[in-house]
């Protein structure tokens, strides 16, 4: 047993497989501090981390004026989360046999760099490195944006601007959630399996190209975080003619006995050109149409005001796509999630759980997901993570259940960064 554990440990340290991992150790080096200044446990942001993020990745209350002063000598940070995983997929209708797999599903190591370029100007980039056996290794530019911080010059960072590829400051950004899986409502894509191409793929789990004003206004209770701007959408290659949207988010924090209570909302609305790639006969240009998308989400989060060790959070999202196919059919999605993060031992051991639900009214698709896990702080820069996920998906046509699929997976890995 000990040999197995040692072998496993060696393997995972070779970096075979990751999922998301987004704590940025370069900041800890830069500010002479630990992960826990900004993270309850990586990647989950605490109140200070939320302020740090809203201040353009600079300490709240600071405006970095010099490009070189106090920057770490090596500006690049690296994080990875190799994981050993067991998965099972079962067709509850009995149409297909149950499948199981035990795997390291790939390699993803992410590099990050962020620094001040001089007074008011700074940048942030995230570069995931993807490796799949037998395929070419790629380094992607997932996030890259230029920021103009503290535009009001009052030292609080209440107004900042950014341009480039970035993630919306929605109340629960998926990459800083402790749970292992992306929220279902963030990854829902109405055009999946439709044989069409779209000018962008709307996803709250991925960065978007655009320009926005963001920050945290400190004078309104314990801070109002916001992000508002224009975007060409996800993976749009800046096709602003065929893909355009506006978005905005607000998230108000109030302290009750020094325990945060947060209420927020966000909105996304835009349009995109859709091309039917299944209809190219006779040299005639394929049919094209415009789909209008909207998403509205509301959220509520609270820490228990006594121990402050229980963090309850929830979100409800409504979405509409008015023209998913040539027949002019629109899809309506509703869903959301509720979750809890629990501090068992400070800076040491954490558990979490989240329940997700997603429903598409027109197709009678229902999806439910439970995601539970733990994280143990093993070494200064390394955390052991354990995850268990169960997902059930059903679809009904004319009152008859056509799909009933249950997937489970369990994994253990190590999240580390330098």
């Amino acid at each position: 047993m000990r040999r197995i554990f040692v072998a496993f440990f060696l393997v995972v340290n070779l970096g075979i497989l990751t999922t998301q991992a987004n704590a940025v150790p370069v900041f800890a080096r830069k500010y002479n501090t630990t992960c826990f200044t900004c993270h309850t446990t990586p990647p989950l942001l605490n109140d200070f981390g939320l302020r740090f993020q809203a201040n353009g990745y600079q300490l709240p209350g600071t405006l970095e004026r010099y490009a070189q002063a106090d920057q770490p000598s090596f500006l690049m940070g690296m994080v990875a989360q190799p994981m050993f995983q067991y998965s099972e997929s079962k067709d509850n209708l009995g149409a297909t046999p149950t499948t199981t797999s035990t795997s390291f599903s790939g390699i993803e190591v992410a590099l990050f760099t962020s620094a001040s370029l001089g007074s008011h100007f700074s940048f942030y980039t995230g570069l995931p490195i993807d490796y799949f056996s037998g395929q070419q290794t790629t380094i992607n530019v997932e996030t890259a944006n230029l920021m103009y911080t503290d535009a009001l010059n009052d030292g609080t960072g209440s107004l900042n601007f950014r341009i480039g590829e970035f993630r919306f400051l929605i109340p629960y950004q998926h990459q800083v959630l402790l749970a292992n899986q992306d929220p279902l409502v963030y990854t829902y894509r109405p055009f999946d399996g439709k044989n069409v191409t779209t000018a962008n793929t709307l996803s709250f789990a991925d960065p978007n190209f655009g320009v926005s004003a963001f920050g945290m206004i400190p004078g309104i209770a314990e801070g109002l975080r916001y992000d508002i701007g224009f975007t060409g959408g996800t993976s749009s290659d800046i096709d602003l003619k065929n893909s355009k949207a506006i978005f905005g988010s607000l998230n108000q924090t109030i302290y009750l006995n020094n325990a945060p209570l947060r209420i927020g909302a966000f909105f996304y609305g835009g349009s995109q050109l859709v091309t039917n790639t299944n209809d190219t006969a006779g040299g005639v240009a394929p049919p094209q149409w415009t789909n209008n998308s909207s998403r509205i989400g509301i959220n509520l989060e609270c820490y228990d005001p006594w121990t402050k060790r229980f963090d309850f959070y929830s979100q409800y999202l409504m979405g509409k796509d008015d023209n998913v196919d040539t027949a002019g059919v629109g899809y309506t999605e509703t869903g959301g999630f509720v979750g809890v993060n629990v501090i068992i031992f400070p800076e040491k051991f954490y558990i979490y759980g989240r329940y997700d639900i997603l429903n598409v009214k027109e197709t009678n698709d229902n999806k439910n997901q439970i995601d539970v896990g733990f994280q143990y702080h093993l070494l200064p820069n390394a955390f052991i993570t354990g995850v268990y996920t169960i997902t059930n998906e059903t679809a009904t046509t004319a009152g008859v259940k056509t799909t009933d699929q249950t997937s489970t997976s369990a994994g253990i890995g190590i999240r580390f960064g330098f």
Partner: protein
Amino acid sequence: MYIQTLTVAAAIGLSGLAISAHNTLTKGSPSSNFDVASYTDPGAKILSPEQPASQLILDRGRKMFLVSCAPCHGADGSGNGPIAANLRSKPRDLTRGIYMNRSTASGQLPTDYDLYRTITTGLHNTAMPSFRQMAPGDRWAIVQYIKTFSPRFTDSTEYPIDVINVGTEVLPSPQSLARGRALYLQMQCTSCHGIRGQGDGPAAGTLTDDFRNQIWPTDLTNPSDFKFGRSVLDIFRIFSTGLNGTPMPSFAETLSDTDRWHLANYVWSLQNTDQFQDGTAADSLAAFR
């Protein structure tokens, strides 16, 4: 083309809003009148309760404290901010006026500059970051605001404050390390820090501070574990001041300046592999450790 034009126009519009808001602020807000230059010299203001900070400075200090410090220390300075429950080294309860990182005699208040230094450098291996990038005037304003949390700072019986005297520095040498090792054993440092300095002495697991938080002795062999700096001078300072609110005493009354330097040299050597002034490699001095 229409969309590109719209986007550019919107960006210009947002920039215009920002500039407009900035101009409004600089004309009318308290921050615009905050004169950083008038409060960057601590010399005349430390150790003196008779020169209270102006209301302008306190207002600025409060604003910056709520933005930067309240998540850990709490808006009321009690050390019970929303993050505190998750931190192993608890944030300071500022209402007690008890500070570890000082240049003053055991039990005394810190100087303004001591507080300024802690804000500036942070405390290594804790969640207290370095706010070196914060405007100096803002850091000084926070110092003044922090002092309002504790009545000790306005109690005339707390003054004057004695800043420690560093004496004549003794450079590290084999002889100094040998003397330092003897003092390390004599002063019972081993009971907390352990025979090898690894923070694993017999009393290590039982320590609490004056706020009833569990604390752990520094692992003197781990450079990352020195919260207040790891130079010989930093270590000497702690031997001279003690760490108020913790079991770590001051040796100012029990050891001479020279002996405190010897002890500091020895402790410094435990986490250091540099060469000494005479070219002797610290690694070759294992017999003295």
